[in-house]
């Protein structure tokens, strides 16, 4: 093993007061790997996600990104290292237009920050990248629409596009299909599948079909621990997993 792991989570724990949300979680991802986290509500998936993205600082353990220790870093510092994420509850700039949303995403990615004087319109690099994203994801028609006036499905799609603005090295997707119709779910799943193969993707997903469709490997969480890891067949054949999660299947 010479190349550093894309993501290396070692013995991470997180307590909220007396509640143990995560217990001794260890998880590693190779560059370009696609891992889906499964688990019932309250299993700790989102807590683990927040610990990786920096919205929560782990109580114990170590998290590193491409060999660099990020356990204590703020979310924006982790973003600058090439980590991007989406949110389970749509988290966009609701009163700004689609184009402004993308402009901000590109500004973050290109670190066009603390520029006080020239107008935004004069930053050609930002504009071109934002326009390319509009074209690539078929958003040109809604470019000047205020985000809160878009349908929920469109908002979920932009939620993912925002994270892609900076061509992240590692992408965290927190239930990108939550609340979507089957047709929309299919579209988002296709969108994720079509992402560049060298992008490392960690995804929380409740929809089994989507999970198995996208994942190279699956990890199942239960009560703050990872209880199973493996490919589709291994997970489907795991007795403990079918007991607690797959239920009737």
């Amino acid at each position, binding site marked *: 093993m010479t190349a550093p792991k894309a993501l290396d989570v070692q013995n991470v724990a997180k307590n909220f007061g007396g509640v143990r949300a995560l217990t001794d979680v260890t998880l590693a991802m190779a560059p370009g790997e696609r891992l889906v986290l499964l688990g019932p509500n309250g299993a700790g998936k989102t807590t683990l996600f927040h610990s990786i*993205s*920096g*919205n929560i600082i782990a109580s114990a353990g170590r998290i590193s990104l491409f060999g660099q220790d990020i356990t204590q870093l*703020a*979310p*924006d510092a982790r*973003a*600058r290292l090439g980590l*991007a*994420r989406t*949110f389970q509850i749509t*988290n*966009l*700039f*609701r*009163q*700004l237009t689609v184009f*402004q949303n993308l*402009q*901000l*995403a590109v*500004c*973050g*990615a290109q*670190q*066009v*920050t*603390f*520029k*006080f*004087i*020239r*107008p*935004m*319109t004069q*930053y050609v690099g*930002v504009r071109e990248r934002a326009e390319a994203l509009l074209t690539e994801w078929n958003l040109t028609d809604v470019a000047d629409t205020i985000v809160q006036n878009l349908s929920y499905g469109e908002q979920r799609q932009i939620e993912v596009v*925002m*994270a892609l*603005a*900076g061509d992240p090295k590692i992408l965290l997707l927190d239930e990108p299909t939550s609340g979507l119709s089957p047709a929309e779910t299919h579209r988002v799943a296709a969108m994720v599948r079509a992402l560049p193969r060298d992008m490392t993707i960690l995804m929380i997903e409740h929809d089994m079909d989507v999970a198995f469709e996208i994942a190279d490997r699956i990890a199942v969480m239960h009560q703050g621990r990872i209880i199973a890891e493996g490919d589709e067949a291994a997970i489907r054949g795991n007795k403990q997993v079918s007991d607690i999660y797959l239920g009737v299947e």
Partner: protein
Amino acid sequence: MARTLLFIALAAVVFVALPFVVPSYYVSLTTKILIFALFAMSLDLLIGYTGLASLGHAAFFGISAYTIGILSVKLRMSEWVAFPAGLAMAIVLGMVFALLALRARGSYLLMITLALAQVVWGVAFGWRTMTGGDDGLPGLRRPAFVSDETSFYFLVLALVAASTVVLVALIRSPFGLALQGIRESESRMQALGFNVWRHQFAAFVIAAAFAGLAGALYVYYNRFVSPDFLHVVRSAEVLIMVIIGGVGTLLGPAIGAAAIILLEDIISSQTQHWLLALGIIYVATTLFAPRGLIGLYRERFMARRKP
């Protein structure tokens, strides 16, 4: 675009011609409106653009006024020292407030900024030897080159116009868009790689600087400074100007300032109960025009043009 330029040209003509057309009382009243328009715009940078509600904005306005008053009246310094010192004190106080208050959000931020501003008020009220306490500091003179109403008006007009240009540029810059992003979602901005705290800190200090400029102009306008400059009522008044005019625009707070000062002028000449009237105006605005006068205008007229 052409409409905006026409509007600006028209406004320029009106403001430049004004002192030659109307009596000096109204020149003075317009000077006051310009000063408070700047004060309200500076607050809207925090509230409307960055999403940080402050009920202590008068502290920056007042500390700048007091610095100038003390340096000029007590220490007999020139306005070339006193005026920049006033702005510097407002900026320093802005940094202190930001460091202490930015850990809170929403109504908690309102409470902290209110408390911090009341501390400054308490100092001005209590430190009689320096600030004159309740009596304030009378006897301030305007600089010699702007001693009459008309030339002082033009000084204020020039500085407020220049400040407005700077604020407009700021809002259109990547920094300004980032502030609006922070208003909409701090967590998303962080996830995109923005250092949210540093942006908020900068917004706080810039807002404090422009509030300080307004306070500096107002102390020369008034030739007198008292603890009223710093009082929570003044913070609330400028907040109401912003809300009545329209949060999240620059023109809105300026219009709100004009509306409040004109109404105060008219109503105060009839009755002692101006604050009662202000309260009624505020309630009426939140009920019938929650997006302020600008919002009302946009809903009524812009909606028809752009279906």
